[in-house]
């Protein structure tokens, strides 16, 4: 703190947005607006699969399922930085599709599978076959080991929790323990016994997730992913998952704030528009500021993905964790205030504020809540 002392030069402010990303953002925004109006979102709340198959097929036709997959498998090889604007747009419209689990499953195959295995699964995933991850043994995103077992005879044992879009998934990438270390195993839908999938009753009714008992499912040797450094790949996938969930949450926060602002501009009480009261104005500005910070973090992380060509270094880990923690806090606050500011209407199921507060509760838990990430940022930033 003394005069003339040179402070640390943080070179951690990269931020770019390419023409390509801009086009993707614009087209995905208009696609999601057209295919996921609030009425459409509400219609899907009670359907078992949770999304519209037609919309999924259109999305596949647009090439989004292959956007971060190499051209040799039919993708367009653009990287995670191009996925970010798509999920942001989906979040904005509360659009329900299995896009995030499919993208993450493809990334696991890309990083952990042998060339033969990649050729077997990736082209199908580009073509829209739904794949999903089965990572958690329970509710703990901080667990460093799994108790799920793959025996020497290649028979699985144990349950997985929070397997997204399990109802329609054809491929399940299961994190298991094989001969003393973690490995990914691919299970196909037809291998699952009757009743193995039990849907969770989720707080966010726009999402679908299930508990799956893989016990007694026998797999062949070529269903075990080749890479042995599963732990590292898993760590990376969790960071990508955190970033994509953050991007989705940023989009959702934007539309939640729009909902609040629209109400504040039209609802009158005591003869005045309620938006003229500072008690409502100032928290609305807090939401905006949290949203802006989170959006900056998300696109900074996307920029670092592009710079690192997919390789995850310390700066990118910091960026993904900050993005998730910031986006969690922004959406939680926005959803909470959206309910409160709608007064009595806000307490009803009919008011759209419920969709946002429910999404906020769900989203904050995916790939770790804010405290989870701050705890892991501490050694990275303070060491």
């Amino acid at each position: 703190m003394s005069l003339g002392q040179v402070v640390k030069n943080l070179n951690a402010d990269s931020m770019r947005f390419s023409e390509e990303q801009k086009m993707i953002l614009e087209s995905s925004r208009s696609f999601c607006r057209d295919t996921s109006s609030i009425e459409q979102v509400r219609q899907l709340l009670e359907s078992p699969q949770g999304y519209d198959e037609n919309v999924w097929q259109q999305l596949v036709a647009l090439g989004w399922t292959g956007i971060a997959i190499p051209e040799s498998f039919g993708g367009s090889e653009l990287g995670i930085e191009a996925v970010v604007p798509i999920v942001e747009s989906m979040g904005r419209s509360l659009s329900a599709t299995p896009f995030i689990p499919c993208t993450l499953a493809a990334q696991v195959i890309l990083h952990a599978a042998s060339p033969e295995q990649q050729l077997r699964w990736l082209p199908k995933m580009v073509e829209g076959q739904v794949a999903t991850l089965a990572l958690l043994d329970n509710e703990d995103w901080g667990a460093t080991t799994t108790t799920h077992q793959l025996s020497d005879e290649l028979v699985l044992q144990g349950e997985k929790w929070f397997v997204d879009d399990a109802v329609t998934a054809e491929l399940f990438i299961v994190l298991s323990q094989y001969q003393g270390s973690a490995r990914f195993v691919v299970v196909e839908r037809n291998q699952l016994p009757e009743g193995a999938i039990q849907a969770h009753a989720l707080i966010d009714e726009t999402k679908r997730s299930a508990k799956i008992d893989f016990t007694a499912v026998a797999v062949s040797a070529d269903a075990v992913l080749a890479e042995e450094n599963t732990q590292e790949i898993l760590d990376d996938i969790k960071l990508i998952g955190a970033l994509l969930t953050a991007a989705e949450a940023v989009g959702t926060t934007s539309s939640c704030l729009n909902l609040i602002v629209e109400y504040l501009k039209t609802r009158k009480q005591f003869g005045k528009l309620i938006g003229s009261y500072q008690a409502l104005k100032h928290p609305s500005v807090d939401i905006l500021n949290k949203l802006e910070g989170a959006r900056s973090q998300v696109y900074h992380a996307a920029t670092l993905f592009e710079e690192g060509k997919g390789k995850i270094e310390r700066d990118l880990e910091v960026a993904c964790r900050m993005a998730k923690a910031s986006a969690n806090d922004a959406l939680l606050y926005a959803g909470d205030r959206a309910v409160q500011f709608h007064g009595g209407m806000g307490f009803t199921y009919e008011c759209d504020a419920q969709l946002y507060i429910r999404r906020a509760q769900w989203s904050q838990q995916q790939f770790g809540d804010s405290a989870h990430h701050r705890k892991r940022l501490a050694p990275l930033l303070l060491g």
Partner: protein
Amino acid sequence: MNTDPDTLTAFRQEVSAWLVDNIPENPGFLLPLTFMEVGTDEQLAFLVAWQRKVYEAGYLGMSWPQEYGGGGKPPAYQNIVDKELARHKAPIIFNSIGLGWAGPLILEMGTEAEKQRYIKGILTAEDIWCQGFSEPDNGSDLGNAQTRAVRDGDEYVINGSKIWTTHGPYSKYMILLARTNPETKSKYAGLSFFLSPMQAPGISTSPIQKITGEYGFAQTFFDDARISVGCLMGEEGDGWKLAMRTLEYERSVEGGQATNYKITAITSDDLIETCRSTQRDGKPLLDDPVVQDQLVQFIMEERNLLLNQKRGDLPDLCTDYPLSLMLSGKLEATELFRRMRQYAVSLQGAKGGLYIHDADALNGGIWQHAYFNNFSATIGGGTSQVQNNIIAEHALGLPK
């Protein structure tokens, strides 16, 4: 003038090397961390000499036109200098009201004669400037300013009082907002803007003691003070427009400042250092998980500010509320610093009860001092509460 990356990199190195050689030794007295804290003659003399040295080296007003004493270079150059000044924790460049607000305003809206007369002196620190906007009864409600200016032949007669006049006792000129017509339908239409001398009969200043116990700003009194009609900027009635433009420069909504280096930043790095060197429960504070969590939170928010600035340059990523990043910078930065500094005082155990005059105070009581002084930033230039209203109304479009 060249702005290719190699030229700019070379320039950055040149500036950095110059600063290493030329930043003055610690003078042995407390140096102001911000331009609002200059309170003693020795501080003033030190800062005048430092500003002149930077100017003579060619590192101040680099983007201002050459014919008035500036450098005539693209803004990228001064931005580099400002960043290097901050990185080297150089003393502040204190004549901010001239360099940051009045100067760019005169360059944009002033007459040729005004530019010739005022710009060079701002850069050399020969002419120190102050601002006469707020009044004792009209702080946030600037449009209601009541200081009167009455035309009398070739002069205006000024009566009234301005308050929170930073640099008031040292200043040669004031940007003054006064009412030339009390009968206009809109209160804003009766205001006029003056480039007023401070050394004129009937103008006096009375120093105000600040929350820190120090001096540095003043109340300015106008008692039948007479200034020449030539001091009027623009036309009668232009006051509100010019004052609003001034505030845009003040809040850095608009660029064009001779420098933006007017405060020494105390960052999360300094807070981390304090936590590393302070023991609690027999261990460094930095090892405490509760403290760690708060520090991480601060670092994230600090990073948000930096990244928001970067994103502000990419309009395709600012389509939702296009004005928000521009309007929220001051609020977010000053409030974050306030909370960080308050936290740094809370961390100190019983030493948090010591103040700058105590030899045992941690780092000379810099956190206590900086915390108190930070209120000038959350209040001055529009309080945080007014900033919230502005953002709500202009970025979110909420009703007044």
